[in-house]
């Protein structure tokens, strides 16, 4: 065997290829996939929401809730609102949730329904209401969203992603925690139909609780026109047609023969105390 020194003419170990071309093909493909998945997630909401069990929702709700900044304030009024909510739930709106009220300091005249039964009530709303019935209507309205599970649909892609993550990696996995912190659940928006259904639910509930519907429309009536809806303004921002909601409620009140009677005042001792 003789050794002949020679250099190989070509290199079999390195593929002659354009890296730039490969880069654009791969990056383009990835981008396309992301766009498709994003669009599909938007469509998947309505398919998935009915299948999310209350138990899973409660577990996921913790992560969503933690992504909200701020601390609970005004424990006195929080306690009162909580007991009002519990009373409504126990007597008239038997929903499979354990509602937890969080009072947050903000001038926004609003309340929010977050997944897992966390209801955020802003002090701006508490300062505006003048009777227990009025407050009960707002709380019952939020319960209406829970009853129809609108709050999950409104969460949109965030809820879909979170559900997948919870099912694939577990609710307490770091993936789910990171998702909960980064996804913007506060982009809640309800459709007109969802609001109307929640209003009807609220009307039934307070009629059951008080025997009359006094104060049901008070809240809408006194909203100042110039109120800045803020980013959670689902009473007003998504509803420039507040007047039509009031007349819709009044129509129901008339046709069902509900009795608009005297309002029950708020507990003075708590309400005059503003921390």
């Amino acid at each position: 065997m003789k050794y002949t020194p020679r250099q190989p003419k070509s290199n079999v170990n390195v593929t002659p290829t354009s890296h730039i071309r490969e880069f654009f093909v791969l990056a383009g493909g990835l981008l396309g996939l992301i766009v498709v998945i994003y669009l599909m997630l938007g469509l998947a909401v309505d398919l998935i929401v009915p299948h999310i069990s209350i138990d899973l929702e409660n577990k996921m709700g913790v992560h969503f809730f933690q992504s909200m900044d701020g601390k609970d304030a005004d424990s006195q009024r929080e306690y009162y609102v909580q007991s009002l909510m519990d009373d409504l739930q126990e007597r008239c709106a038997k929903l499979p949730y354990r509602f937890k009220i969080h009072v947050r300091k903000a001038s926004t005249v609003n309340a929010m329904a977050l997944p897992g039964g966390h209801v955020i009530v802003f002090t701006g709303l508490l300062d505006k209401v003048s009777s227990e019935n009025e407050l009960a209507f707002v709380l019952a309205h939020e319960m209406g969203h829970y009853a129809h599970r609108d709050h999950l649909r409104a969460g949109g892609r965030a809820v879909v992603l979170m559900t997948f993550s919870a099912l694939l990696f577990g609710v307490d996995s770091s993936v789910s925690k990171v998702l909960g912190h980064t996804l913007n659940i506060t982009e809640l928006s309800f459709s007109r139909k969802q609001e109307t259904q929640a209003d009807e639910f609220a009307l039934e509930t307070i009629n059951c609780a008080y025997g009359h519907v006094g104060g049901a429309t008070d809240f809408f009536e006194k909203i100042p026109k110039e109120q800045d809806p803020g980013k959670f303004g689902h009473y007003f921002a998504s509803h420039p047609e507040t007047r039509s909601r009031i007349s819709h409620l009044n129509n129901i009140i008339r046709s069902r023969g509900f009795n608009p009677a005297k309002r029950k005042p708020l507990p003075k001792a708590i309400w005059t105390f503003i921390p």
Partner: protein
Amino acid sequence: MYDLLIFLTLIAVGYSVGTLTEKRHYRSIHKREKAFLYLPAVTIKAVDYPEEKVRSAELVYGSVVISIDYFKKILAGLRNIFGGTVKSYESLIDRARREALLRMKEMAGDATVIVNVRIETSTIARKANKEGVGCLEAIAYGTALTLEK
């Protein structure tokens, strides 16, 4: 936005500088391989030669560490998603092995033949097994035999 700018700059710098460096390295490899053609490096364990004619036998080795450039790293990352041959790493490994062989030959000096040559590679990652291949080490070693003329 700012992050994206840094990312794109890194890719551009990685591509241009990386391509230049690679071309220069290959030119040097080709030149030195030609110069070392007189010294065979083979994988057989022994040569058929009378023992008393072997003047010396010693261990020779050459090693090199080469890093991937940013562009190719990103390209390989994209490849990781879709699968397939990671072409962007091929030249890195090829260069490292050939450079290691050349350094081994340089260490052998005026030996007649290098037998029992082995080449090994190992990764030197920034965080062990987390960042993937950042740097690659190739080592070539063998036994250099110097024979009586």
